[in-house]
């Protein structure tokens, strides 16, 4: 009889330890998706008595969308300098000698709160021996313009939720769509933010002085619509889709905002159809709504893959 409580205790102990561990879902997403929320200095140049510092998330330029913050200080005392204007022009030199830029904000906007100039750059390629990115910066202090050139390194974006795509539309214009957020999606309703940019074809011949910004100009397209159809392309998921998604439309910040619902973690394809102001399809095709288990999911001709 004495042994019975012992037996009961043993049974309880056996049960208290579950056979399979529960999934720590939040930790699993954290492990799959590296995120950066902190701006750090990515490069700095000394220009006369001034020091120009460019900060980006995690102090790194990644392929895709990068928010940048440029500060100008007096290198003698470390004080901020009252600069009146600053420009930012990244140019990629290929081995064949061609020079191209990428979507960027040329005239940086001054943000008095943080005492920096704000902008962005959507690098379309990673740095390599064949592709070298040079950054051309100018700023004016007390009516005097200073220009500088520096080589920067663009690294692979390991967070697939910040992927980008470059393509030519049916209007023969070059476009870039870059994901801006969310950095770390959840199985939930997520606010989806993207930038849509187009290359402004130069109308005039390049000037003598290199670089001529008019040859490397990009702008945010305005009034477009990015129709969204998120899918899980994995054969085992049969091109599963989700509901209650909202197409991306432009908001006051110039970026395109929409809603994407991810129903489970894993690989997703954001299928897009891009329409211009007049509703004309510039790129993208409809994805059939049929559930197709066992085969790789059909994609739109315009899409970005993400993973979380």
């Amino acid at each position, binding site marked *: *009889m004495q042994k*019975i409580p012992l*037996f*009961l205790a043993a*049974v*309880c102990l056996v*049960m*208290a330890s*579950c*056979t*399979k561990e*529960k*999934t720590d*879902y939040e930790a*699993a997403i954290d492990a*799959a998706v590296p995120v950066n929320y902190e701006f750090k200095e990515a490069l700095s140049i000394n220009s006369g008595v001034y020091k120009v510092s460019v900060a980006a998330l995690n102090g790194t330029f990644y392929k895709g969308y990068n928010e940048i913050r440029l500060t100008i200080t007096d290198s003698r005392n470390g004080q901020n300098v009252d600069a009146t204007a600053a420009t930012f022009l990244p140019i990629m030199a290929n081995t064949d000698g061609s020079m191209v830029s990428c979507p960027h904000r040329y005239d940086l906007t001054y943000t008095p709160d943080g005492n920096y100039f704000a902008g962005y750059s959507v690098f379309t390629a990673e740095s390599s021996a064949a592709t070298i990115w040079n950054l051309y910066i100018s700023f004016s202090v007390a009516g005097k313009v200073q220009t500088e050139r520096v080589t920067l390194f663009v690294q692979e974006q390991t967070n697939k939720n910040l992927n980008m795509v470059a393509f030519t539309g049916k209007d023969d214009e070059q476009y870039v769509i870059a994901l801006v957020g969310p950095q770390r999606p*959840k*199985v*939930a*309703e997520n606010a989806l933010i993207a930038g849509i940019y187009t290359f402004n074809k130069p109308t005039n011949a390049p000037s003598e002085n290199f670089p001529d910004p008019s040859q490397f100009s990009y702008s945010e397209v305005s009034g477009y619509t990015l129709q969204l159809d998120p899918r*899980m392309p*994995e*054969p*085992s*998921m*049969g*091109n*599963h*889709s*989700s*509901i*209650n998604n909202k197409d991306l439309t432009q908001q006051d910040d110039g970026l395109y905002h929409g809603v994407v*619902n991810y*129903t*489970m*973690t*894993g*690989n997703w394809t954001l299928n897009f159809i891009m329409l211009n102001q007049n509703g004309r399809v510039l790129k993208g095709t409809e994805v059939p*709504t049929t*559930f197709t*288990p*066992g085969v790789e999911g059909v994609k739109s001709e315009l899409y970005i893959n993400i*993973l979380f």
Partner: protein
Amino acid sequence: MKTLIIAFCILFMGMTVAVPEAQAQHGDTEHHHKDTTRYLKEVTVIDETIVNKKIETEMKMAVSVDEFLASSDNISFIKRGAYAWEPLLNNMSSERSSLTIDGMHVFGACTDKMDPITSYVESNNLSSIDITSGQEGSMHGATVAGSIDLKRKSTPFGLEKKWGGAYQTGFEFNNNQFLNLGNLSYSGDKLVADGSISFRKAGNYQAGNNAEVNHSQYNKFNTSLGLAYKTSLLSSVRVDAIYDRASDVGFPALPMDLWLSRAIITSASYKRLFEEGMLRVWDTKVYYNAVEHYMDDTKRPENKVHMDMPGWSTTYGLVSRASILRGAYRAEIQLNAYDNLSIAEMTMYPQDRSKKTMFAYSWPWVTTRFAGLSMNNSWSISEMSTLNVGGSLGWNYNHSKYVDFNWIFHPGAPQEKNRILPGLHASYQLTIDQFNFSLGTGYGHRAPSVSEGYGYYIYNSFDRYDYVGNPNLKNEVSYEANASAGVKKEKMGIEARVNYFYIENYIIGRILSLGSPMNYQSVGVKGYTSLDHARLYNLSVNAYYDILHHLHWKGTVTYSRATDNRDGNLPFIRPMSYRTSLHYMYQRLGLQASLSGDMAQKKYSPEYGEDLTPAYTVVNVSADYRFDFKNFRTVLQVGAENLFNEYYSTYADWGNIPRMGRNVFTSLRFSF
């Protein structure tokens, strides 16, 4: 709502005011014995009148819990294989009834209802099963269809025979099921112990055409222990535990099997009897149970995709019950409280295993808390008539930890939800000579289940849809009426029962045109929605006739009909069914034969994946012989189910899987 609260106040006040003064008569016979020890013993026996009743049917003594339940008129089953049948009470699915073990709430851990709680007990640790239809079953918590309470064995104190026990072994030839069941009890003056252990192992069964039904095997181990100690002449404490383990259980109707499920069901209770006053018995129990359930789809070659679907369900609870008796008035008051956490996960593996798996919660950590007070009052107005009035008032709380999942389909749904669940019922019984009549009515609410409220892409292989819950579902509200009429004579009796349910906000899955399925075999997404109303009625007629002194006949016919608000058919409604049996006893020999079947299910619901199920008839026979072997009472039984090897499936067989063909069974039981 206000009127309801007033109604409740009146009800509970009525209990204190309307107690008649005639207390003296009852129990006087016992009071004459001054031996209080014996008094306790007798009261215990009276209180648990079912102590020695065995869980067996007339046809077969080595039944499973499912088979035993199936012998009841208002229970039918959804079957997904040979194991773990889902009981339907009054043709309503299991979330509409309150399923308890000795009043303890236990919730299965499988989103696909592969583990109704009846699968976590065994026939040799139960003494009986209490089935109550409709609102009268609200004693253990809010319900619509009624309650099924599985009563554990509990041996009384101080029996003359201190040790008792039984061992039963059996073999069933169709699926090579080998079963061994043993139980032992000790009854001392101060201490009582009940223990049981059982093993069942079965292979695949063969359907009527002798074709093997793959993935229908199972293995089950169950053990239980109960210890009671008498703390004073009129009080005792008791601890109970059941441990159940099922492994390698095939579900032929599903695209996956069960790898392992385990349950531990524990409780500690204190019981006190009172010799004087209105309060006669007070019984309080705290309980804890944990269920884990792991599916396995790797044994199905048709599954190109592998998915893990583990589930966990943990419940803590309290049941406190008081019995009040004063003359012709009797009342039961019960407090029920529990806290349950249900978790279920899906992890899908990509075909290229090096790629990242895909994960979602099918139950996103859903907490359910319930607290409710139930009571039932009964007055014996005269020798001929009795009035029962009762009610319950409960509070139900849900919380979804990962409410983001629910927001995908229901943006902005609250993470927490409180519901008030009232219930009322009244019935009147009248007996005039050989005739008896009863009339009853009821009203009650139930909260949506975890799956109905918070389920997320739960694959239902019957209609092949993924089901999504809706946290904003309204309470299901049932209005019910029931009646019965019967006549009993010396050698014969006949009784007809009918009940009718009008259920508002009837919860059922409806196709969502916008969703896209997630599971490999799925064809679409259904969301749980409330129909404006549904109507169900059930009719049964029972009769018996003692043809000779040792030859008895029994027969039952049932008919049910259920429609939604557009007069469409509801799914899983039993067509007209019949059962008739003959029982002959000659000295130590018993012979039984039965014939049962369903008519064709013509009122089926294609919307829910049903098709026309043809009629079938099954014949069973068995013979048993009782003899004494040394000091053991021994019963040997041989029989055959589905004697003519009919190939059939019923309206509630998931995916029309065929039922078992001819099954010859043998069983031998020793008891002392």
